[in-house]
């Protein structure tokens, strides 16, 4: 479909309109200063968005739950536990996290639990206007602006150069049919044709603010050329505590395990699934005890291979890393993406 462009003078206008038809989810700051996605946010709460407010937990859990029941067995029949939800709008998703949802849409395309949640969700993306603390989205083609096939509505701040801050102007793009439908009943002025071009110009300005991440590109090449020596993976893996933080926070990590939980009261059994981690020794261990990745070094290598290997391009059309840098923040062993890629570049260059 061709995208429709509108002028929006106030975020609150769109927010209030959507709240009539959707449960509103936004990034909210709590009294301890933590920023996280919260649901059923009161309409008068202005959203946090953009590079200064990338939450530590991405929106992944809204579609691929950290822990959910799949089906129940009462001794005679199996009953699917379908997620019950009403339409909801995620307001203010950053480009990197939208790219990750796009990636997971493919991984979970036949997963009824994921799809049930996805179908009920309207994604409202907001362009970032600068680099975030640990981010490098341009390197992996995941930002800083929202790709038009990654969201239903896209907002871009056209007020960046103005100083008064009172009058705000936003470009609103209805990027999907769902997005167009969501705007029904909202009176909006069409945006001038050259705004599409202006947005591209803004993008160039924003890109210029990013630091030099050449080492990441270089290291991606080393990984794909098989040039990272096993000793380096071993050196890095000694620092992996197998906490599972990287895989939990990685917005594209999608591995899960299942387990049967018995409820003695009702004498039934529920099969649940929950986030798993390839960094656990038991992740690939087979029933015989054989483990294709029994060394921590193999598990570390495997993780980065899954994030940066060309082998996955045919299936997903992109790398498994969206450049959000969350692994760098959460890794107790200091082997997040920046440290690892820098180390690979240094070591392999020598």
């Amino acid at each position, binding site marked *: 479909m061709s995208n429709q462009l509108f002028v929006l003078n106030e975020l609150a206008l769109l927010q209030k309109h959507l709240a009539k038809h959707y449960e509103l989810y936004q990034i909210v700051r709590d009294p301890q200063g*933590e920023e996280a996605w919260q649901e059923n946010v*009161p309409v008068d709460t202005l959203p946090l968005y953009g590079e200064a407010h990338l939450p530590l937990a991405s929106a992944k859990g809204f579609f691929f739950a950290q822990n959910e029941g799949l089906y129940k067995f009462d001794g005679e029949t199996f009953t699917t536990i379908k997620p019950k939800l009403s339409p909801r709008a995620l307001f203010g998703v950053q480009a990197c996290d939208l790219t990750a949802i796009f990636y997971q849409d493919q991984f979970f395309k036949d997963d009824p639990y994921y799809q049930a949640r996805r179908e009920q969700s309207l994604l409202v993306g907001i362009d970032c206007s600068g680099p975030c603390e640990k981010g490098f989205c341009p390197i992996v083609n995941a930002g800083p602006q929202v790709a038009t096939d990654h969201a239903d509505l896209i907002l871009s701040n056209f007020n960046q150069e103005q100083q008064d801050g009172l009058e705000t102007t936003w470009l609103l793009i209805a990027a999907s049919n769902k997005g167009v439908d969501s705007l029904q009943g909202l009176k909006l002025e069409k945006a001038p044709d050259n705004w599409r071009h202006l947005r591209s110009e803004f993008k160039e300005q924003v890109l210029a603010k990013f630091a030099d991440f050449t080492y990441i590109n270089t290291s991606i090449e080393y990984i794909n050329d098989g040039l990272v020596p096993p000793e380096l993976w071993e050196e890095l893996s000694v620092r992996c505590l197998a906490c599972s933080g990287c895989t939990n926070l990685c917005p594209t990590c999608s591995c899960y395990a299942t387990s049967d939980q018995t409820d003695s009261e009702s004498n039934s059994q529920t099969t649940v699934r929950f986030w798993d*981690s390839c960094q656990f020794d038991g992740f690939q261990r087979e029933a015989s005890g054989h483990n294709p990745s029994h060394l921590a070094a193999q598990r570390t290598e495997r993780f980065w291979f899954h994030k940066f290997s060309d082998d996955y391009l045919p299936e997903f059309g992109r790398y498994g890393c969206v450049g959000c840098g969350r692994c760098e923040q959460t890794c107790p062993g200091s082997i997040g993406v920046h440290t690892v890629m820098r180390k690979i570049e240094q070591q392999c260059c020598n």
Partner: protein
Amino acid sequence: MHESAAVSPQNKPAMSKTIVNSICPFCGVGCGIGLVTEKGQVTEVQALRNHPISQGQLCSKGWNTAFGINPRDRITHPLIKQEGQFVKVGWPQALAHIADKLTGYIRGYGADSVGVISSARATNEDNYAAQKFARAVLKTNNIDHCARICHSPSVAGLKQTLGSGAMTNSIDDVDKAEVILVIGADPTENHAIIGGRIMGAKLRGSKLIVIDPRVTRLAQVADLHLQLKLGSNIALLNGLVNIILQQGWQNTEFLSKRCEGLVELQAQVANYPLDEVAKVCGVKGEDLVAAAKLYSQANTAFLAYGMGITQFVSGTNNVIAVSNLALVCGQIGRQGTGINPLRGQNNVQGACDMGCLPNVYPDYQSAADERVRAKFAKAWHTLVAIEPGLTSLGMSNQARKGKFRSQIIFGEDPVVTDPDQNKVAQGIKALDMLVVVELSMTETAKMADVVLPAACFAEKEGTFTNCERRVQLVRQAIAPPFEAKVDWKILAELADFMGMGALMPWQNSEQIFVEMANLSPSFSGMSYALLEQQQGVQWPCNEAQPMGSPCLHGHTFPIGKARLIPVEQTPTAESPDRQYPFWLTTNRLHYHYGCGSMTRQSPLLERETPDGLLFIHPQDARDLGLVDHQAVGVRSRRGYLETRIIYSEQLAPGLLSMPYHFKEAPSNQLTNDAMDLLTEMPELKACAVNLQALDANRQPRSIGEIIEANQQILPLVAGTRTAL
């Protein structure tokens, strides 16, 4: 930029997800953890980027918290054992029963025939209530908790040398140290986020020295690893002090201004010459010199230690030897330095601070001091206990002698976690009434006469104190399930049933905190509002230090000048011989916590449990003809268990190691309860064992199966003996 207002949970529809920021319930690091709740259950957790300690990180235990507190395995109602079976009863019936029995024992045998074991897993408020209940309601000083078997020697040792037994510095100081010295601690497994900080500091250029009989993860990345022989800590530490004094590497100014006892110490450590120390400890002399130089010559050196120092018969002296080293080098009282015991449990620091120890009231005010007793008696409007109290092991021993009737245990599983399991079980069986307040049916709870359902950390308000003395707010995320109640409420209601409800009249946890702070000089400046505002405050917090104290002993020590106290190398109570040729030590695994009652409910963490629990150097195994994963029987003078061996290069030949988390093969069948005389700390880190291969096709039996089989055999054996 648009700033959103805070969204309070009350404004939200009941069905939606809410995030409540609290404190991780596992180790003493005290990480921030976001509890995501849905339909009254914690379904997910989130890491918290803004938390001063964890900064967006959690360990595998923290990430799996939701499994550990799920309502499926919880004790739902008060239970009273009748003819060997637990029967559900209401709270009034259970409490009336306990009150009636306790009153009877106190009348018949005196107040010292009963006692309380509080929980280092519970809040400061719960612990304050527990010691008040013992001292003011029961009128006994028989109050203790598991610090007995982790850091009681730290409290006792550092109290003598510095005047205060807690971590002197902050976790943040790891990043400010030029040299980090880790002795007898495995922080990447047990205090993962601190372990990670240490690895990070090392990457940025700090020097790392590890002193440990095992090749821990930190030892693998260290600049220097002194792999000493088990139990030779004092020889090694005295040897280091001797080198430093001989080379003139000591901090002379600090010694003259801030310490006393140098002459005596110098004379005594002269008996620890380099060559001899190297031989006794099994380390290279040049490594000892290198370590002594690095540590003493650094501008800032951060020293951390753990159970590898305290869990010995020489535990208190080991701590004193550590203290001597730091004092001689003046590595204390400044940022990036300090003597830093890494506390094991989420609130073991707090349980000590709150006076859940027989010899001290809150804030370490001596129970032997008449003025202290008078102060508390006046504040509480009642008479308080006078006689010295018993430690947990003391209570157990007295019970076996028939002199101790009843114990209330909060959230501990001594049958699995205390040394010499068979003796502990005998002590418990000898009680007339055991009351266990627990989340789930632990091995100890199964042996109880009354079991009460407790509320977990996510179901209560209160505070935990982490290892760096930071008092942090624990926020309630969900309501207690079924009939479960918070510890302090249980105690207050029990006091009421005993006719002394007026002593514990609190309506909420904050009122308890206020009462405690009013009676405790180190906490007098603290309030919930300040803790909220500051994301936790480190004690002492009072008029002199209104915002708390990240670094202790900057200008003076609580005892004025610090004391250097000469201590001699003491052999372990047991060492290998022909009958029991191997050393056995204990360790912990990153994935599991304590008795495993919470972490083993996570299918992910349970999957990480190794299929064998006895770690052995491959050379030892090959010498005995044992293949990896071979089933073996392990025997000490105290017990026997079966498990599989796991080859591990972490160990030196001659040394075996077992984690203690697993009830099917509990290391405490084997461990020695020989004690440090001052603190009654048992020697959990060293005993002698032998092992033999099981028949090729035999699976290792669980301890339950072994005991059952023995009960069938024993009468026969006894009969034979009688016949003979």
